[in-house]
């Protein structure tokens, strides 16, 4: 055994606290060590060359690098020794930066601590064995969950790179929230004009399949090899026959169902498509409201359909398919807690509406053909109050976070209202104006200066009716006094919140969520589109409130990660995975229970071919799916019979480290 120890200064990060030369001297005396040295930046090219030369010159077979955290540079040094002909798992890192120099003053104890850490790493590396990474095949087909602008962008980017995509959407049409908007800030492009071409591109792309009215039921497998089960809900309309003529939509006798797409400002029938530009542009039957499904009598749509596309017998289809990567783009929901908005009378006074409802009133394809009118009496409002931060930045009633986009759409709606109704008076009640994006601040100024919006800094305490108007009671914190403003319409900038079933989807995918149920990224700064499970990526507002530019940027980011994955020949699995000694395993299943990644299955195996009674004896044992295992070691720690083991962190290796420390500590007393 010939161990080499390389102590890094990390510039002054380590060297200013730890006496690296003393560490080198101590290392030279450790068992098995034949060579030790130090260098200013071990991770740099000269540093790595130094290691490779030492391996050749001193015939080293095991390496200890005393530097930073293995999370940062273990892969660097593994590649380095591999290039010099060693197995990459013959490297150990002693973290003398994060776990030593950064948390100590320059004292002899700090140097002693570094020496102890090196001693443990040397003891462990002596027990290391070569490990091999296995090659896993990749199914080069992506699943995109959610057909909003994030999902659409991701699907198009992946498909344009030549890989097939299935785009799963829960509602009857793709388009998401963006399809509901009128115009988009800060350029005032019409949302439909820039979104619907992308929707059509998705539908016509030879590599994209749209599964609308469908939901993910189960996700199994691992990066490159996911097996996903999707429920394709019965639309009761045979898509292969339907021409989208829309005759059924006019004749369906069940009217007056509040339209989800119009946020309840308009109605739809039992057979419907959410909006005229829907993709796919074919209706579905809402069975809960359909007279035929509820009473067995009606059948009007079936009689009227010229191509016989109505199929009442259609069943939900459960489809299982293999995918190599998954993009989660399930978006957000709008906060609608009427009870928590009681001070504004939302849900009680008809002329208090949400911003998304106002968006539908402004939209030319909305229920009023784009005319801004009061829901109560259809009158054109002469004054409108926009209230910011309803449920955002408000721990008392809603969420502590900022929903990020409300300041901008408040400004946009105030501007567009003035544009449509020239003599309308607009008031925007705000806490702060958060307009940090390209052209955003300028846009808000334009709303104030050119479109005469009255911006009032202060919270609204109450909205109450007086005659046929509404009184908004608020504080003007710049004037330092309470104010009351009488308006015809109140628009609440309600918070963005996670989808109510986000937690459920996270469980199916095996990914994590934060305290609000937004999906958690792998690293808040450096890995913003990945999650901790390989092969699953995030796009859009399912992660945190985002505007359209950020959403689209992240969607393209997620797509490029998928394309990067698919362009590899194969995936090399991590070698430090768990395994189970099936001879000693008693099949108690504790490891399967504690595994955070669902990587352990219980399987039946033959225990003995022939028993005394001449019968085959079976037994249950745990088996690790190495493609899913992340090498966390929880199973190994939990196993009562010591059968679950973690490669690279075997009991004998861990004990060697502890022994090395215990030995020197006992002499120091």
């Amino acid at each position: 055994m010939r161990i080499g120890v390389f102590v890094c200064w990390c510039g002054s990060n380590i060297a200013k606290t730890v006496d690296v030369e003393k560490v080198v001297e101590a290392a030279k005396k450790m068992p098995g060590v034949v060579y030790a040295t130090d260098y200013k930046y071990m991770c740099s090219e000269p540093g790595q060359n130094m290691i490779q030369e030492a391996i050749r010159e001193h015939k080293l077979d095991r390496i200890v690098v005393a530097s930073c955290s293995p999370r940062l540079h273990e892969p660097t040094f593994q590649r380095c020794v591999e290039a010099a002909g060693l197995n990459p798992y013959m490297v150990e890192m002693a973290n003398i930066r994060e776990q030593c120099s950064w948390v100590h003053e320059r004292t002899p104890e700090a140097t002693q601590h570094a020496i102890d850490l090196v001693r443990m790493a040397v003891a462990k590396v002596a027990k290391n064995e070569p490990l091999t990474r296995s090659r896993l095949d990749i199914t080069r087909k992506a699943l995109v969950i959610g057909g909003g602008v994030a999902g659409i962008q991701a699907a198009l980017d992946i498909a344009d790179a030549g890989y097939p995509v299935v785009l799963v959407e829960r509602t009857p049409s793709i388009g998401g929230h963006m399809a509901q908007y009128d115009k988009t800030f800060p350029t005032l492009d019409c949302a439909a004009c820039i979104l619907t071409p992308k929707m059509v591109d998705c539908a016509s792309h030879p590599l994209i399949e749209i599964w609308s009215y469908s939901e993910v039921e189960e996700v199994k497998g691992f990066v490159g090899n996911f097996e996903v089960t999707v429920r394709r809900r019965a639309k009761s309309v045979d898509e292969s026959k339907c021409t989208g003529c829309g005759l059924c939509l006019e004749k369906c006798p069940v009217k007056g169902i509040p339209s989800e797409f119009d946020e309840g400002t308009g109605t739809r029938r039992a057979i419907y498509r959410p909006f005229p530009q829907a993709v796919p542009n074919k209706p579905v039957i809402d069975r809960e409201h359909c007279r035929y499904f509820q009473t067995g009598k009606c059948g009007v749509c079936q009689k009227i359909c010229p191509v016989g596309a109505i199929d009442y017998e259609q069943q939900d289809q459960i489809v299982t398919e293999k995918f190599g990567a998954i993009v989660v783009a399930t978006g957000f929901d709008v906060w609608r807690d009427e009870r928590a908005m009681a001070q504004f009378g939302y849900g009680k006074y008809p002329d208090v509406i949400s911003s998304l409802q106002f968006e539908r009133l402004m939209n030319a394809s909305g229920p009023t053909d784009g005319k801004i009118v009061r829901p109560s009496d259809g009158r054109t409002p002469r004054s409108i109050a926009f209230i910011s931060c309803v449920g955002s930045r408000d721990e008392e009633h809603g969420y502590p976070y900022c929903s990020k986009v409300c300041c901008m759409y408040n400004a946009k709606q105030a501007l567009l209202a003035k544009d449509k109704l020239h003599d309308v008076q607009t008031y925007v009640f705000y806490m702060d104006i958060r307009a940090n994006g390209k052209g955003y601040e300028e846009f808000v100024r334009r709303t104030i200066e050119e479109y005469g919006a009255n911006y009032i800094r202060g919270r609204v305490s109450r909205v109450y009716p007086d005659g046929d108007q509404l009184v908004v009671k608020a504080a003007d914190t710049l004037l330092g006094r309470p104010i009351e403003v009488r308006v015809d319409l109140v628009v609440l900038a309600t918070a963005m919140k996670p989808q109510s079933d986000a937690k459920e989807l996270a469980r199916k995918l095996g990914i994590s969520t934060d305290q609000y149920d937004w999906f958690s990224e792998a690293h808040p700064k450096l890995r913003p589109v990945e999650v901790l499970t390989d092969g699953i990526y995030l796009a859009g507002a399912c992660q945190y409130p985002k505007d359209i530019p950020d959403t689209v940027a992240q969607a393209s980011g997620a797509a490029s990660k998928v394309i990067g994955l698919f362009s590899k020949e194969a995936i090399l699995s991590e070698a430090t995975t768990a395994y189970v000694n099936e001879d000693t395993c008693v099949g108690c299943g504790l490891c399967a229970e504690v595994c955070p990644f669902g990587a352990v299955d219980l399987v039946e195996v033959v225990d003995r071919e022939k028993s005394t009674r001449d019968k085959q004896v079976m037994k249950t044992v745990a088996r690790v799916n190495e493609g899913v295992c992340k090498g966390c070691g929880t199973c190994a720690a939990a196993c009562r019979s010591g059968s679950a083991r973690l490669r690279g962190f075997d009991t004998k290796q861990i004990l060697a480290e502890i022994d090395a420390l215990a030995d020197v500590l006992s002499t120091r007393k």
Partner: protein
Amino acid sequence: MKYAYYPGCSLESTAKEFGESTTLVAEALGIELVDIPDWNCCGATSGHALDHKLSIALPARSLGIAESMGLDVVAPCAACYNRLKSAEIAMKSDEVLQSEINADLAKPYEGKITVKSALEVFTTPEVLEKVKQNVRYPLQGLKPACYYGCLLLRPPKVVGFDDPEQPSRLDEAMRLVGAEPVEWYFKNECCGASLGISKSAITVKLTGDIISNAKKHGANCIVTVCPLCMTNLEMRQAAAGKQRGEDLTIPVFYFTELLGLAMEVPGIRKLFASHLVDVNPALDAIDSAQPAKI
């Protein structure tokens, strides 16, 4: 049903009719109220404005005595209730504070009992059922604006036994005894509270807003749950009316008085004599709506 009773300073002085109607109605409903012996000031306004720890310690002393009696506390006054409840929550959620304050108390408060407002106690389903059985003089013709005030239900995380923004328990109780509470929008606006002493012009403005909104929606009386609200609503009517150029004269009742009136609890009617605003127009409205006796 038995409670430790915390009257507070108002209910023994300016709001005597609130105190007496509370005990009379409780007795009629079989709810036993036992005075907390040697109770002390709840620390309202001056106490909690100046010294946070004192604002917990003062109510904690009374709560400690009640705990030694093994009874939950009823505090009818909205301010007393708010202070006592705040102390209860603070003591229950902060062990360090609890042990610090208890070190100074002869009878420590360990969070074994809880504080309730009179409205809370009198409007549980069981008690309301009893009230319903005992209504002998339904308050038909009475159109109260039910006024909860600012303190009773806020902050909701501390008090909040009803919806803080759209409360309904007082309205429900009034409906149960035959009155027809009006829909109005100032149920929980501030009356100006103790600014009535230092900056009375603000109180005149705020009470004017409240009474005007009540009258505009057809109320022929206001029902309150707070002694300070009562004082402001009664005392500022004339000045507010003059300022707004409206007739803002309107009788104001404590809700316990109206419960007692509907149940014909002996001794209730004589309390009306101590009101500053004549309540007879309201009583006449009830009388004229009663079915003719043959």
